[in-house]
């Protein structure tokens, strides 16, 4: 086999089979992975949740992860937010010709490992190869199906006054990691992505506290964007305490240099949960005992007034609005 992906690998003939055999099949082995046109799956007992997401990231490899890991985590976490145990996933690759096969294999291998952590099975895939310049190295789209735990009913519209707001770890690390990986601003910091599959901690929480109101993963736009989404969808106010928001010192340093706000930087392994106040301590305790959510913290609570707004108690003890996120994040230097 050649050591880069060529247009022939996408043509459907012998080379395509070879790529599937040597790269994809090797890593996506399970009873349901199919050579037929569609995989045939047993029907779960409960309600199902289904979601899809496309992944484009530059660079494709970054400290703590790569686009493959990201593509599994993104879909696993979307399902988890609905209280759905991830069962099956499909993935579609668009690869630029000339992409090194060993890198493709590394990506696929992280997908295998990440999927195994939560027991989700990759049951079908597709590969297309595009000419040079038509794709930025590699794009991945994943689709997932999960089974919703009995008695669980979460939605962005279910936040209620009094709810405690929990974030499952420090914020903004993925965004800061990607920013540094692009090396546009000459800054170095020991920051790695927070990218992680979060079904296991979510399951632990929901089995003990099924009455969680809202779970949402903070991806693009960061935790700040999620808070505004929930404030609008549930028509409630949100009160944050700036000192309680966990931020890695390195991320804080990077943000300080570039004039950015950590609450608006992307995460890929952080959930925001809205839980009834009396259950908050129990949820925190469970999260702290789980891998990937050891740094969970209560950052605020839901209020009846100020519907649609996020109000923050600042370092000087004043109340101010957290500006609603928007626009391309440009470093604010002057």
């Amino acid at each position, binding site marked *: 086999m050649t050591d880069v992906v060529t247009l022939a690998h996408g043509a459907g003939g012998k080379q395509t089979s070879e790529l599937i055999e040597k790269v994809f099949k090797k890593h996506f082995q399970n009873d349901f992975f199919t050579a037929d046109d569609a995989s045939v799956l047993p029907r779960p007992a409960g309600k199902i949740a289904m979601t899809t997401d496309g992944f484009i990231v530059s660079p494709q490899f970054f400290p703590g992860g790569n686009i493959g890991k990201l593509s599994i985590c993104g879909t696993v976490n979307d399902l988890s937010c609905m209280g759905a145990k991830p069962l099956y996933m499909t993935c579609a690759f668009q690869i630029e010709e000339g992409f090194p096969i060993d890198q493709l294999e590394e990506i696929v291998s992280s997908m295998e490992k990440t999927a195994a952590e939560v027991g989700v099975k990759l049951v079908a895939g597709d590969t297309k190869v595009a000419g040079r310049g038509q794709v930025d190295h590699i794009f991945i789209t994943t689709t997932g199906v999960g089974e919703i735990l009995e008695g669980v009913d979460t939605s962005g519209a279910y936040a209620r006054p009094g709810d405690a707001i929990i974030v499952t770890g420090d914020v903004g690390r993925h965004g800061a990691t990607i920013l540094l990986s692009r090396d546009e601003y000459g800054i170095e910091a020991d920051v790695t992505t927070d990218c992680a599959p979060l079904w296991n901690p979510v399951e632990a929480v929901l089995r003990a506290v099924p009455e969680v109101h809202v779970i949402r993963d903070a991806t693009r736009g960061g935790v700040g964007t999620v808070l505004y989404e929930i404030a609008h969808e549930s028509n409630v106010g949100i009160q944050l305490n700036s000192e309680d928001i966990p931020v890695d010192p390195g991320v804080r340093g990077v943000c300080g240099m570039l004039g950015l706000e950590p609450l608006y930087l992307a995460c890929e392994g952080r959930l925001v949960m809205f839980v009834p106040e009396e259950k908050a301590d129990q949820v925190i305790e469970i999260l702290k005992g789980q891998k990937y959510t050891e740094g969970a913290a209560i950052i605020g609570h839901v209020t009846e007034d100020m519907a649609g707004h996020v109000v923050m108690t600042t370092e000087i003890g004043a109340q*101010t609005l957290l500006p609603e996120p928007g626009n391309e994040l440009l470093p604010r230097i002057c």
Partner: protein
Amino acid sequence: MADTVTKEDTLAKARRILKDYDGPKVRIMEVCGTHTHEIFRQGVRRILSPKIEMISGPGCPVCVTDVTFIDEAISLALDHGCTITTFGDLVRVPGTKKSLQIARGEGAKVKVVYTPLDAVEYAKEHSEEQVVFLAVGFETTTPSECLAVENAIKDGLINLSLLTANKTMPAAYEAMKDATDLYLYPGHVHAITGNKICEDLLAEGVSGVVGGFTGKEILTALAVGVTEFQKGKPFFKNCYPRVVTGEGSPQAMALVNKMMEPCDQIWRGIGLLKNSGMKLREEYGAYDARRKFDLSGIVGKQNPACRCGQVLQGELKPNQCPCFGTACTPEHPVGACMVSSEGACSAWYLYGDLATKPLEDK
């Protein structure tokens, strides 16, 4: 732990002074965009006594950058094929017809850098490109831009130049002094210039405090300011001595004076202020984009509906401008004050009137 206790004590005391202030009504103008930004972000206005009014002055270099300057930059990119290097905030500032961001979509090469020194590195690595750095800023930033030219000369680069719109603060202090009772002077400008300007203004009866930029530093400077103000005599106090010394940075000033000379400068919304800008001296003409490329005949036209000028001078509140929040939003800014996160209109839009309304503590 002991540290936390002192911190809270200091903060609490500053807050108490500002909340309980019951002296004569006082207007305080912050002249630095970063002060404006932090004052909004921290919610400073909400904890002030109704007798204290904060006014956002013209200290955001993005906001006072003239339309013509943006048009010139776009022409350099699109007509002259130059690579534009710039601070991030300038990218969205509207010119007569478009911003650099839109021009980028039309093929202009625009690169955001952290420092002008990175523009030098970029020029070194891309000797086939003509690289222009958009030199905006006040006394704090101008030395870095001069250093870029100095380093380019040292490296023998002939493909880097500055498009200058550098401005100096004293002209602004002079121009705005009737709109305020008390200046909150920007610490980082005075780290370079020293405090002689403030002493000179004091001699004219203009009061002020130099302040730092953290929430606590701002509150402290304001608390010192209103306490002194109440005594009824003009005063000046440096509340940021850990960074600002009386003499400033002689090295920075010598560098700037070696390479640059004063010039008249147009401030967006305010107009032409005599000797309020800096440009490269003739002997550095090879590094001056206006001398190197023909930009004559470019005269920008400001959208006539925009009231940025009056907002900058404290005559209008942002929400009193007819464009505010309708034609002009951070996503589609008409005026520069809406573009920069330091801009008064942008801050007002993002934080709403909640930013100014006093609110009881929870």
